[in-house]
């Protein structure tokens, strides 16, 4: 068969190519920058290089050990703490949002309690979290939860709860009631119906929800900026602090940290990829 390289196809591929380049360029730039020595990332236009001419782990050395022989400045904190803080708070926040959201969504979807509740929950997402963050900060300060792992996890759980709730509710709505009624008639208690039948059926949806919520929490900047000081500073906040009066923005160090920050969502994505690719097919019923 002849390949159909018509004009229309050519244009189509060109557009796709441009989109792919636009999407991947910053990532690729970050990846190579992470291994460039300071001279290469502070350079001017004519010396700009794609691949590092002298690849180095100096940037990693700098963010993890605070000093590097290439940089005259030193850091008072290494990146280990923020990475750990991000992992803990994003994970716990995700756990809170997904557990509460799933249970709430199931209740609303199945038992129809609180007709306006779903909209009420959604409303939490209609204004930016920033709008309520100052009062939250005052409350958190009063409760002694500023710069604590539980304080940050809790607010992450609250802020992302609407996402988890709405996603799960749509999925639960799609699970046919008859499936649950069948299990009920066959001798299951309602709770058992939930964890033996319904939950396994929305497994793929649950995985998707976990990934979305985790990414939201993982990439938060504003909340962590306001609710942490020192001990539980997260990666985005820490990254912003990677500047110095002498050298300005430390792009190499930021790129190095950015490359690390990409890892957890990617790993999570790979783990649940099977479910994402398979899509959300609830095929128990013949419609």
């Amino acid at each position, binding site marked *: 068969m002849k390949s159909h390289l018509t004009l229309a196809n050519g244009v189509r591929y060109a557009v796709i190519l441009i989109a792919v380049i636009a999407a991947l360029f910053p990532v690729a730039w970050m990846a190579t920058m992470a291994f460039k020595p300071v001279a290469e990332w502070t350079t001017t236009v004519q010396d700009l290089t794609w691949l590092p001419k002298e690849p180095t782990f100096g940037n990693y050395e700098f963010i993890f050990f605070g000093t590097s022989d290439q940089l005259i400045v030193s850091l008072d904190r290494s990146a280990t703490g923020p990475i750990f803080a991000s992992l803990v708070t994003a994970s716990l926040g995700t756990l809170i949002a997904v557990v509460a959201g799933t249970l709430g969504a199931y209740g609303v979807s199945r038992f129809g309690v609180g007709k306006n509740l779903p909209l009420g929950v959604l409303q939490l997402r209609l204004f930016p979290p920033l709008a309520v963050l100052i009062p939250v900060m005052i409350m958190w300060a009063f409760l002694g939860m500023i710069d604590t792992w539980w304080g940050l996890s809790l607010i992450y759980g609250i802020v992302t709860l609407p996402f988890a709730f709405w996603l799960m509710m749509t999925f639960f709505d799609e699970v*046919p009631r*008859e*499936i649950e*009624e*069948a*299990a*009920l*008639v*066959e*001798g*299951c*208690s309602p709770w*058992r119906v939930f964890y*033996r*039948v319904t939950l*396994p*059926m929305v*497994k793929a949806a649950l995985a998707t929800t976990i990934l979305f919520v985790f990414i939201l929490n993982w990439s938060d900047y504003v909340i962590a900026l306001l609710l942490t000081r020192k001990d539980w500073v997260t990666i985005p906040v820490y990254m912003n602090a990677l500047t110095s009066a002498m050298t300005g923005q430390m792009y190499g160090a930021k790129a190095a940290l950015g490359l690390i920050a990409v890892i957890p969502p990617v790993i999570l994505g790979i783990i649940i990829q099977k479910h994402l690719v398979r899509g959300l097919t*609830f*095929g*128990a*019923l*013949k*419609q």
Partner: protein
Amino acid sequence: MSSIELVGLTKRFGDLIAVKDLDLMIEDKEFVAILGPSGCGKTTTMNMIAGIEHPTAGQVLFDGVEVQNVSARRRGVGFVFQNYAIFTHISVYKNLSFGLEVTGVPAGEIERRVADMAKLVRLTHRLEWRSSRLNVNELQRLALGRSAILGPQIFLLDEPLSNLDAAFRAEMRTELKHLQHQLQQTMVYVTHDQLEAMSMADHIAIMDLGVLQQFGTPLEVYNKPANLFVANFMGSPSMNLLPCRITDEGGEVVLDFGAGGRLMVEDESLLALCKKAARQDLVYGVRPENVTLRRGEKEGRGLSLGVNFVERIGARSIVHLGETDHEIKVLEGNQSPTKVGETLDAVAHAGASHLFDAQTGVAIR
């Protein structure tokens, strides 16, 4: 022993009355079909028997014991859903063993019973398959097996055959009846397909708009419909129903069909029915197979009507005669010589006529 008795059973959903004051007695080991058009309340009735829905009023009794406060999982009924409700995320084996595991049956026994049931529903070669891979016919058998494996004394089936292809449906009808004999259960079968109900059930309960219209054996409801709804619903093609007025002309009883013509009543049984009629406005009914078309006979014996259309459906031909308001259908053989445009005498067989009160719709007996 497991009879089912429904007493004054009523279910409301807001303003909608899904089932109204339903009384029904289903004997032990009986196969009862609940028949009716969609939205007539048959599935709601079934759900109340199973305990999935709670009645607004009235009682459900199993063997004379009230069960409306017993939860679905403790009633010990098997339920096959219209859309099967198979757990597609697990294997066929796991589907079959599900109910047994939940109720705490020992592992060895589970294995044995699953193997037995798989054989009965012919799924032994599919046991390890993920159930989402099954085709519709296999899903249907799995749904049956999954309910039957618990050995319920009462088996409820909600339109289980409606998704199957025609050939397999016929096969399953025989198989279901066979299964019921084997398992010795009381079966309640919801359907909108009169053929299924007629061919399988010992008794048929016909419902419309939440109200029980008639309860009887298949032949009873077919031959002696209690009202216009049943008369119209049962049978395909359906019964001819013609509005008429009863008049007395010099001692002769005459049914006046208006533009459809007039009929001097000679049939003894119809005459007896006419005498019982309390009102003049009636609906005359006769089944298409109980009418003979005659050519060139003397006038007055039947209704003289023009042929509009001849529908040849293979084994039979359906002849449509008369005008819109007084249209009647007559069944003839497949070699029927009737042609469009002919004017023929439609004569009802002796004893095959029905009369209904036009106002209440109730049959005159």
